[in-house]
């Protein structure tokens, strides 16, 4: 059945291709690197598809529940008598789903990049980094151990850093990569301390033991729930801190500022890392620890829910005002991840209670498909137009018909129009919210409407609006602007999946407790959100399908708010103020000053005192023999007197 060596190959293949391409690719086979990387990823994808098939259908449910299978586990570092960091492979519905998504999207991006990155001097390096990322991401989702996930978490962060900064000659890319790394690093500090808190009380780092110990009544649970710090129990602190790490990677408020800038990386990278896979790591982490959140600490789950909905709404508002198409997509990613987060936040555990969990995972699944498609489509557009700005685009539907159709399908999917993929997952999320928290439900419906609006604003601005005028003579050679086949193939595959992915019976496969449940489709409930989405699309059509002054007027009438949203509510400025003004000027500079002047100054003072002292007494050393003789005789005489009269 499940062959553990076979499973181990899934993460190992990318790391092997990373080593081969990274060490030798650039010098010996620069052109072939892309093919090599793609082939290894193809194998990994096929393997993970087989594993998924076997897991879901051949091994299947035992006692009506999908079991968690530890396929492999090695002790990596035995830190304490009963705590060790392990490296292993854990299979359960969410990890199996994730490896399929990761390998699949990664494969698409690999294929796409063959065309997109063609002619790039550091082509081999690019593929090496992609492989490294895929390895880290697979390691992350397959982790058996909370420390293992942290290790791969950091590795994912660094691959993201390397890929954002791929065009390292551009200062903006370097700045963006730094920003992404440092912001997520800051969040990871919370994660690390959260791990330390959780592991200290539960005396384990292993996920299954951890969950078992912290969800059942017993000494572990009572000790962690009993220990309190500033008004909250250690358990709440631990979980909230772990969630902070997740919020960092998943670009949730207040750690969201890195994601839009991360778009400085090559577009396929944005599709893979900053849309489909890495950014959902935070959602995955919360899902991984969901039993603890749900059973033992509803307060922490509320934090997840409110952060999720707030980020989602915030990002949707900002997305409506951005003009860089990749930034619009970035904010839409943040908004959609917010959906996944609050879906988890409102969910209960087990059976139908766990609808939110299921919906979140479902949305993660469908979102990764259509968001990757959107990014790859945007990449094709950018490849053609050589600009990220909406004002440079328009009327591309005639020039890029295939891209146009696939992009439209993705927009429909994300807007939640039936029967496309996003509709089903979003419906489940809204239903879960309706069942538990009406405030979140209201905000979620509003956000869904905004999503439809800004996505179609984007769509109309790119493909309709004005006629396209090329700034680049190369394109006026009679061809229409369609990208090469390697770029179109992933678009078409992903577009096909965006249509059908919604019909996957997720509630049977991926649920909070592993047991399936039946979902009912409430046509009456679904109607409202659909109507809102459709009217938002019509509004977008009205405003953006032709060049008009309407958008400008709307913007003017909302002046202050529009500017604030356009400026992303000044979060960047606030962070810059805190780092530059406070950390650098108020901590760093004084620290350096104190070191130079106080501590070093003290040492120099000691030295100068010594020098001054020797200056003062050096005149004794006159070089005159007879003076020395006087001192000598005087000394002798002194000693003689001393011994005769004072020494008794």
């Amino acid at each position: 059945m499940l062959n553990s060596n076979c499973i181990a190959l899934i993460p190992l293949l990318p790391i092997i291709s990373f080593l081969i391409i990274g060490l030798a690719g650039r010098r010996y086979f620069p052109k072939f690197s892309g093919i090599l990387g793609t082939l290894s990823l193809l194998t990994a994808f096929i393997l993970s598809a087989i594993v998924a098939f076997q897991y879901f259908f051949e091994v299947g449910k035992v006692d009506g529940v999908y079991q968690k299978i530890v396929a492999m586990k090695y002790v990596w570092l035995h830190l304490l008598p009963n705590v060790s960091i392990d490296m292993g492979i854990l299979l359960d519905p969410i990890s199996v789903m994730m490896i399929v998504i990761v390998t699949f999207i990664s494969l698409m991006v690999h294929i796409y990049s063959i065309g997109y990155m063609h002619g790039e001097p550091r082509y081999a390096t690019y593929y090496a980094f992609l492989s490294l990322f895929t390895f880290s991401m697979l390691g992350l989702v397959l982790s058996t151990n909370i420390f293992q996930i942290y290790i791969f978490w950091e590795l994912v962060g660094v691959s993201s850093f390397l890929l954002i900064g791929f065009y390292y000659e551009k200062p903006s890319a370097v700045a963006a990569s730094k920003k992404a790394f440092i912001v997520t690093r800051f969040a990871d500090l919370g994660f690390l301390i959260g791990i330390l808190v959780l592991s200290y009380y539960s005396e384990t780092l292993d996920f299954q033991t951890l969950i078992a110990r912290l969800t059942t009544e017993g000494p572990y649970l009572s000790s962690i729930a009993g220990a309190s710090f500033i008004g909250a129990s250690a358990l709440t602190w631990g979980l909230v801190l772990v969630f902070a790490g997740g919020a960092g990677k998943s670009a949730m408020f207040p750690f969201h500022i890195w994601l839009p800038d991360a778009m400085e990386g090559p577009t396929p990278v944005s599709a893979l890392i900053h849309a489909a896979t890495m950014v959902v790591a935070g959602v995955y982490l919360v899902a991984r620890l969901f039993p603890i959140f749900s059973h033992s600490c509803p307060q922490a789950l509320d934090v997840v829910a409110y952060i999720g909905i707030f980020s989602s709404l915030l990002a949707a508002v900002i997305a409506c005002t951005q003009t860089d198409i990749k930034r619009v997509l970035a904010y839409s990613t943040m908004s959609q991840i917010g959906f996944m987060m609050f879906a988890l936040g409102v969910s209960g555990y087990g059976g139908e209670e766990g609808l939110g969990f299921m919906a979140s995972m479902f949305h993660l699944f469908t979102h990764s498909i259509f968001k990757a498609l959107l990014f790859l489509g945007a990449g094709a557009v950018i490849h053609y137009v050589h600009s990220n700005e909406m004002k440079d685009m328009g009327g591309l539907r005639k020039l890029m018909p295939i891209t146009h159709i696939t992009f439209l399908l993705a927009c429909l999917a994300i807007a939640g129009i039936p029967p496309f993929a996003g509709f089903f997952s979003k419906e489940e999320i809204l239903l879960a919210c309706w069942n538990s928290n009406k405030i979140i439900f209201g905000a979620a419906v509003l956000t869904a409407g905004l999503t439809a609006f800004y996505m179609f604003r984007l769509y109309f601005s790119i493909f309709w609006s004005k006629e396209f005028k090329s700034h680049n003579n190369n394109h006026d050679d009679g061809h229409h602007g369609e990208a090469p086949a390697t770029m179109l193939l992933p678009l078409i595959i992903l577009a096909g999946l965006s249509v059908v992915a919604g019909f996957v019976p997720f509630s049977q496969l991926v649920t909070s407790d592993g047991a399936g449940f039946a979902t009912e489709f409430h046509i009456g409930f679904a109607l409202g959100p659909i109507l809102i989405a459709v009217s938002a699309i019509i509004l977008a059509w009205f405003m953006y399908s032709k060049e008009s002054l309407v958008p400008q007027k709307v913007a003017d009438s909302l002046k202050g708010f529009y500017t604030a949203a356009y400026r992303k509510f000044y979060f960047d400025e606030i962070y810059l103020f805190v780092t530059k003004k406070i950390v650098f000027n108020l901590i760093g500079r004084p620290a350096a000053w104190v070191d130079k002047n106080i501590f070093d100054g003290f040492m120099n003072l000691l030295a100068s005192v010594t020098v001054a002292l020797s200056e003062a007494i050096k005149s004794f050393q006159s070089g005159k023999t007879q003076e020395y003789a006087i001192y000598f005789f005087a000394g002798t005489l002194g000693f003689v007197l001393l011994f005769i009269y004072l020494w008794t």
Partner: protein
Amino acid sequence: MNGIGLEHILFISTALFFIGVYGFLTRKNMITMLMAIELILNSININFLAFNKYLYADKLDGLFFTIFIIAIAAAEASVAIAIIIHLYRSLKSIDVDDADLMKF
């Protein structure tokens, strides 16, 4: 010889010693200074002999020391004169104040 006691001899040797010290401290000519040192040494020799004779007449230790000091004094004089000659060669002077190179 009854009138002459240990004190008399010690008085002479002390006088000799301080004459030597005075000479050593005031004379600028290195040869003279060397001679002053010889005076000091000889005052000590007298001391040794006197103590030997008056206090431990049955022993010869004082005598030995005297001979020892004379030998040392001879060696010392030759080394000192060698130094003086070298200083003269380099400084063209045997004034002790000119040989003040070894200061701070």
